[in-house]
């Protein structure tokens, strides 16, 4: 077995075995520590995937459009065209690292604070299982395997929300599970529409849509895009998201917003667009209109929102709208914008949910009416919240800027009345985003301290700093040097756009 194959297996096997080890460790605190160590090792393995000889990944005519840095291809269930086929390339690697990082931060955070509802040991084990599912989804190069990993995430995440969530957790969790299952069963049908027509489930061979008739591509893209639209979520299929985010415990919200939503956008780029490019071209205007609708609706709802976590949840609808707009343009600029927007949203919204959780834990309220003057009593928390909000609204120099700006640029570049209008409307949405985030800051950090805020102690716990610092640094780093993401993604995106033509 080569080094890269070992790494690929390790990235999945470490958290899977780690979950078992955590469940088997008798003492709660020790179990949480074991989980954190395992999540750390997974991050190391994920980061190491970058190593190795990538020179042969230069793209030339006649080579497949997906050329993974490392790959592992083993038979599993030949009767269902299911192969254990993993690979990593510039499109998936940033998301893999982001997933591993956020899981590690969440596990570390759990060392310090376990939300009410159940044992910390079970929570950490579930987090690791969710990690296996998400990483598997990003690494799978077999359609059926992709589907299997897509499904793995569902129930552990349900259990996290239902077990450790807020007052209305059961309803929110059930809504999450049913909605996303609806998405994944459509994915199942879409996958087998492709497999039945093409006779293979190999993503590498299928990318470019060779050998699929136009009718098949349209049907497949419709099913796949619907499936990923539920997960991303794309307006009007988003209504599970605000409830799930609001009710989930802090670590659940972070994983949910940070990486779980990315399974949808990643699937759209790698599977839906890659496998059925003709269908993508056909549906792109619809996708673009819906994405812009999501941006505008998300921002407007946020402007009227009175609950902190719900506001951040709805802001995800808007941000993912920018990502989907980028994908819908089907240009290199647009898809690059989508990829960096994905990563930026994961980092920034992860940080925002950590901060919202910290504020809610301290003040026992999330209502904007009862929160004000945070900077008077807890200046550090208020400063971090300000930083995250400003990053989220897309200030140049921070991570949020690149994805949103270039999604708009890509839409305008795509030309034509429709795309220009969409670009302009998206830019208006960007301004609205700034408006609601500044409103959030004005309400929460400025003014006289409310009774709930007045009791706060100014300090932050060490674990909080440890959990948040990497996200703050990443938001800065990706903002200042977007090439961290774009550098690795450039070649595979160009190859993908090449087959779209």
């Amino acid at each position, binding site marked *: 077995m080569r080094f890269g194959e070992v790494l690929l297996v390790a990235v999945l096997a470490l958290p899977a075995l780690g979950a078992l080890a955590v469940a088997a460790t008798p003492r709660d605190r020790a179990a949480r520590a074991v989980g954190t160590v395992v999540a750390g090792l997974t991050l190391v393995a994920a980061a190491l995937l970058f190593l190795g000889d990538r020179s042969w990944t230069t793209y030339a005519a006649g080579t497949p459009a997906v050329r993974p840095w490392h790959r592992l291809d083993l038979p599993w*269930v030949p009767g269902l065209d299911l192969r254990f086929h993993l690979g990593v390339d510039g499109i998936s690697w940033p998301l893999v690292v982001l997933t591993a990082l956020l899981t590690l931060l969440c596990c570390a955070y759990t060392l310090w604070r376990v939300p009410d509802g159940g044992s910390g040991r079970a929570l950490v084990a579930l987090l690791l299982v969710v990690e296996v*599912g998400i990483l598997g989804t990003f690494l799978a190069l077999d359609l059926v395997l992709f589907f299997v990993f897509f*499904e793995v995430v569902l*129930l552990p995440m349900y*259990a996290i929300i239902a077990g450790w969530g807020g007052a209305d957790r059961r309803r929110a969790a059930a809504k999450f*599970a049913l909605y996303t*299952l609806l998405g994944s*069963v459509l994915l199942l*049908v879409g996958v087998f529409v492709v497999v039945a027509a093409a006779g293979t489930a190999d993503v590498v061979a299928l990318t470019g849509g060779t050998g699929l008739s136009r009718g098949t591509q349209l049907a497949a893209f419709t099913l796949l895009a619907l499936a990923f639209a539920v997960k991303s979520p794309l307006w009007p299929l988003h209504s599970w998201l605000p409830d799930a985010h609001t009710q989930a415990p802090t670590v659940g919200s972070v994983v949910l917003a940070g990486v779980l939503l990315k399974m949808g956008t990643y699937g759209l780029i790698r599977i839906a667009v890659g496998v059925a490019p003709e269908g993508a071209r056909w549906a792109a205007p619809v996708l673009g209109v819906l994405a812009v609708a999501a941006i505008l609706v998300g921002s407007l709802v946020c402007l009227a929102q009175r609950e902190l976590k719900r506001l951040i949840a709805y802001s995800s609808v808007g941000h993912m709208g920018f990502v989907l707009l980028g994908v819908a343009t089907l240009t290199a600029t647009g898809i690059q914008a989508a990829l960096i927007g994905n990563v930026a949203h994961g980092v920034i919204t992860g940080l925002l949910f950590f901060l919202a959780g910290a504020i809610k834990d301290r003040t026992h309220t999330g209502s904007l009416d009862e929160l004000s003057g945070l900077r008077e009593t807890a200046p550090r928390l208020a400063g971090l919240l300000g930083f995250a909000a400003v990053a989220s609204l897309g200030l140049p120099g921070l991570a949020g800027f690149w994805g949103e700006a270039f999604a708009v640029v890509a839409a305008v570049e795509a030309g034509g009345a429709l795309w220009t209008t969409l670009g302009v409307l998206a830019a208006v949405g960007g301004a609205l985003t700034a408006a609601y985030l500044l409103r959030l800051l004005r309400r929460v950090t400025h003014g006289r301290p409310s009774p709930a805020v007045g009791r706060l102690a100014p300090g932050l716990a060490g674990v909080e700093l440890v959990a948040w610092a990497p996200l703050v640094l990443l938001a800065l780093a990706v903002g200042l040097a977007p090439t961290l993401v774009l550098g690795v993604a450039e070649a595979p995106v160009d190859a993908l756009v090449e087959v779209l033509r």
Partner: protein
Amino acid sequence: MSVVQSVDNVALLPAYLAAGTAVLVLLADLLVARARVTLATAAVGATATALGAALVGAGDERRTFCVGPDCSYVFGGRAALVAAVVALLTLGVLALSGPLLRAGQSPTGEYCFLLACSMTGGVVLGAAGDLITLIVALETLTLPLYVLVGLRRGSLASAEAAVTFFVVSVVATTLTLLGAALLYAATGGLHLGRIGAILADRPDLLDLPLTTAAVALVVLGLAFKVAAVPFHAWAPATYDGAPLPVAAYLSTVSKLGGVVALLAVVQHALPADVTGPVLALLAVLTMTVGNLVALRQRRTVRLLAWSSVAQAGYILAPLGALALAAGRTDDARTAAYAAAVAYAVFFVVLELAAFAALVALRPAGADGGTVDDLRGAARRHPWRAAALGLALVGLAGLPPGLAGLFAKVTVVRSLLDGGAGWLAVVVAVNAVIGLAYYLRLTAALWAAPAGLPGTDAAPGVGSVGAPAVVPVRARTVGVVLAVATAAALVIGFAPQFVLDVAAR
């Protein structure tokens, strides 16, 4: 033609073993009259039957009782699979019955004897090559169950369930027999392959109203046995009234028997272009109605009963692909039959695990109770509750119940290969409805027990949370639960094994 037939006794070995088990159990009960010995005899017999079926099935297909090219008894790969699965399921149900029998609610000798008789029917069923053998085997499978359902002393529900089951089942058998008779009148054949060949040769026969009526009667009569909608109404009442292990037997072996019988006539005898649309409609109705009604159930066994109605719909779904011309090519047909058999195998393993866990979580000899009775069960019995959760999640078709996931994948794949995309979407949407109630039941296991603060449920009478109720401590139940769960996990990670066996 010679009057004396040569009989291939090797092909009949599994049937001999099963029938011999029944006789031995009867003798053991008469002569030794100790419950433990009777149970052990039945268990050893069931094991021997399973082994015998596997051994005979490992070789080539064996035929016997032949008239010319048509044989009444064809022991091939599928017959071996059915026989082995039936015998193993019987063994599992026997082990689950330990607490029930020890509680003295049912007489051990009769119970084991009837179960062994029923097993004999199931073992022969898969090998049946003509309509009469098929119907006799199916009746041998069902007949003892009327008694078993009602065999709980002093239970009115049990007696009611037995009468419902008996009446409906007899009507269904009559319909099937009438259909078989009409089919004989129309074609002059009784052997499944012969009927199929005659109907294929002479398409004009299909224009006869008589033939259409015959085909419809046979299919509908068998649909009763699978509890397909609209012939399902008996199942929930019967399951709920029967003792838990018998309900487990009904929803696994009895359902498998119905599926095998239906598959045999559809595959070999009846024209696919007639049965296809009927089966597609039956499948859609069965899964949709089963799932929707299951949403409203409060009693555990009724919920499982309605869910197993819905599951029958998923089993029938691949056969619905025969409705379209694209689904009637040889490849697509073979794939559809294999998918139905594979789904049935995945299903019975998960269903047995679910019932075993339910038996383990309930007091000895009790019925299934309500969903609220299971609230908080995971706090007292984490392993048993986890096993039940795994089985339910598998039935819903989601990881970590990979066996159920691959079962659904198999069905959807065969449907899309047969060009029946619309039916695949129906199956997919039904999986979502199904998750709603499986999730409710699973979540109840981990919920705060009834009566504790923070729950809105009224305290259930005899709930698991109440200290007076002690769930069963039978070792055999634990073994069945462990084995069924392990089997579900193994076929979840290596589903190819099931797919290969089902395709033989």
